[in-house]
């Protein structure tokens, strides 16, 4: 038995530390396409202090550590590329408190999206958070670390924009508070009016610290929620349609999707939009505003609203939406991965065309999906493919298609969302040298031993 194992057991207890092959097997992979790599140890701490001890141990031993939520990013961000210790955060799942009037919640770093949703529904039915369309086991901390998006992203930006404070264990073991909570008992701001230091951790994929607590903004939850779907056969009209929809300021979430099957969806672009209200009058007023905003497209017959039958509505109104799992198994064998570059909305037509070309070229099934971020400030364009895990040739074709897709995105002014280690390298090659130098300074200063999730954002 190694000294490191013994030390880890001393920190978290024997039942929360493992070097068992069958457990390392699972911690060596995520559900995507990335090559696997086993960690040497897995530990599931319960407290910030335990995390702190693990980090100090790793520093002393110069052993890599990889903080992990539910491992749902699909791009291999929690695969321990250089072995070491995977810190599974899921035992740190306490909901520390809610400030109802100030609309924010403080949660521990392993709290899941589903747990928070359920908690709010039971205790604060007038409040909600921006739930992503990931499985409910996905954690809130991991989601903001990858700049995830959710149901309120069209209204309030990336989920990471909704962070209202952080408690972080730095790579050298200090516990550091970020935002208003650094000098106040209240977690209402991650930065302003202080220097905003949250950027040292958000988007860094655990390479600069481990989030052990975070404050998250909550938003009003209306009593009613409904869905409308506007359909057009002209991809080139989608940006203008989105511009007009967002101008109404009446819409919650906006997603765009197109797919080959079932054939009723073939050839069209579907803009799913959600409206909410506390009364029928509010809902109908918003619906009217939305319909009126697209009158020009309706009158020219370039687009129209489809009838969303009552039986279809639960699928669309589900949060998170489960229908993605159906697509994930189209080819049987349960493989699904997507690259989701963040791009300008005006680029939608070229990306939509490219996705079809990639699918044809590589003979794979695709699903196009995009989510509006902010008031048309940008969008996440999902280049998604499904594959059979028992078919290595198909998996290889999907890999190639995804690679071509992300290069295309870079070439068209996009930036990668939750990029794989390989995509991070491409991003850094294309980055302004001074930006890269600044990242290097930050990384070297925060993580002098290079122990934090190595292989990711390797500015060295």
């Amino acid at each position, binding site marked *: 038995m190694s000294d490191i194992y013994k030390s880890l057991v001393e920190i978290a207890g024997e039942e929360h530390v493992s070097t068992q092959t069958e457990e390392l097997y699972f911690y060596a992979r995520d559900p995507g396409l990335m090559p696997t790599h086993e960690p040497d140890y897995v530990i599931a701490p319960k407290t910030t202090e335990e995390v702190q001890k693990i980090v100090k141990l790793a520093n002393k031993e110069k052993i890599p550590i990889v903080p992990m939520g539910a491992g749902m990013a699909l791009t291999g961000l929690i695969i321990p590329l250089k072995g070491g210790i995977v810190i599974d955060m899921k035992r740190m799942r306490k909901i520390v408190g809610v400030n109802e009037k100030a609309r924010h919640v403080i949660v521990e770093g392993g709290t899941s999206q589903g747990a928070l949703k359920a908690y709010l529904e039971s205790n604060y039915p007038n409040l909600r958070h921006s739930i992503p369309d990931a499985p409910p086991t996905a954690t809130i901390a991991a989601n903001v670390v990858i700049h995830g998006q959710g149901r309120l992203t069209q209204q309030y930006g990336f989920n990471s924009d909704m962070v209202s404070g952080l408690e972080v264990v730095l790579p050298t073991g200090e516990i550091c508070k970020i935002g208003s909570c650094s000098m106040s008992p209240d977690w209402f701001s991650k930065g302003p009016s202080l220097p905003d230091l949250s950027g040292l951790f958000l988007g860094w994929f655990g390479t600069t610290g481990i989030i052990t607590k975070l404050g998250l903004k909550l938003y009003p939850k209306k009593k009613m929620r409904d869905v409308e779907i506007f*359909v*057009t*056969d002209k991809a080139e009209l989608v940006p203008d349609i989105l511009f007009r929809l967002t101008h109404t300021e009446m819409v919650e979430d906006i997603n765009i999707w197109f797919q080959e099957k079932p*054939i*009723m*969806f*073939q*050839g*069209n*672009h579907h803009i799913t939009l959600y409206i909410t209200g506390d009364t*029928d009058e509010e809902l109908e007023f918003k619906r009217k505003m939305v*319909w009126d905003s697209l009158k020009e*497209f*309706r*009158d020219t*017959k*370039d*687009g*129209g*609203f*489809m*009838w969303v*039958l*009552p*039986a279809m509505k639960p699928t669309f109104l589900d949060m998170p939406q489960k229908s993605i799992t159906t697509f994930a198994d189209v080819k049987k064998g349960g493989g699904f991965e997507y690259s989701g570059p963040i791009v300008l909305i005006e680029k939608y037509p070229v990306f939509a065309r490219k996705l079809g070309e990639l699918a044809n070229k590589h003979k794979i099934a695709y699903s196009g999906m995009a989510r509006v971020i902010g008031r048309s400030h940008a969008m996440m364009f999902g280049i998604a493919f499904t594959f059979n895990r028992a078919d290595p040739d198909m998996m290889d074709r999907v890999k190639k298609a995804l690679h071509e897709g992300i290069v295309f995105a870079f070439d068209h002014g996009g930036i990668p969302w939750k990029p794989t280690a390989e995509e991070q390298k491409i991003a850094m090659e294309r980055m302004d040298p001074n930006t890269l130098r600044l990242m290097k300074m930050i990384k070297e200063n925060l993580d002098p031993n290079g122990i934090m999730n190595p292989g990711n954002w390797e500015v060295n």
Partner: protein
Amino acid sequence: MYSLKFDENLCATCPTSDCLVKCQYIDVDRDTAHNEMMKIIKGEDSFVLHECVTCYACEEYCKRGNHPFYLITERREEKGMLTASRAITNQWINMVEPQGKYRVGELTEKALSYCFIGELRQAARGKLFEGIRSSYIFGAEFFAQVVYLHFAKTSVIKERLPKVIENISQLGIKQLICMHDECYGSFTSLAPAFGMEVPFEAIHYLEYVYDRLQELKSDIKPLNIKVAYQRPCSSRLSPDKYHFVGDILALIGAELVEREYQGENALCCGEMIRMINLNEVANDIQKRNIDDMVESGAEYCVFNCPYCQMALSEKVSKREIKPIHIIDLCKMAIGEKK
């Protein structure tokens, strides 16, 4: 190959022009109606082609056996006029593209057609359908095609309906009980109007249910409720069967309330009208229709078409009227449903 059998002389000599005079959405006098119909017949443009909301009612208003709505639909397509957007039109055309995923039961010469409506499969249960339920057809291969009238696409009807008829007759079916007005209308009105031969007998399910209730008369306990009936657009293609609604309701002790929007003056559910881009018209129809149900004291809104039911159930429920399909109402009367 198939073309609309339309007798121009019947229109030219029509003393009423009721097809347009009675239209609930176009306000015209007899002379204007006559002139506009003559323009349409000649292939000229008419404001009617632009303003028709596709309620089908003129097919019933015409008592001379002509097909004014089919003609309007033909002319719209000839002129490249779309009712709904291209995208929605194609969505509906693709949705019911036959793909070999149909279902047939243990067929006999008499069979039920669920068309391509899953809800009808669920409805056809219990004593009312004893002995016939297992003999059924369901799927895109048997789809009625009538809906393409809303989209001004008679070309789709002409292409697909003959194949549907062939598919059914190849199964050896001699009598087809159509569980939906569209289905019945397609074989008894649409197909003959376009010169398609139908080698089997279509039976309207309301007629079947009425006959069956007569057999089950001893099981019926009068419901003693007041109901409003939501007449679907496609029932305009078979007005001769409309009386079965009243006959059935009388048989099960449900009082059909007197109201403004019933019979020939009925308002459709509005959702297809919404889909062809007439949102305000659809809202207005639904509001007037439901207000009328409420004012007439109806406790239930009885549906014939599952899509009308989907369109209006929530809305009538909010006004404290219970939505129910007529088959379920019959099941209530014979003690099979609460």
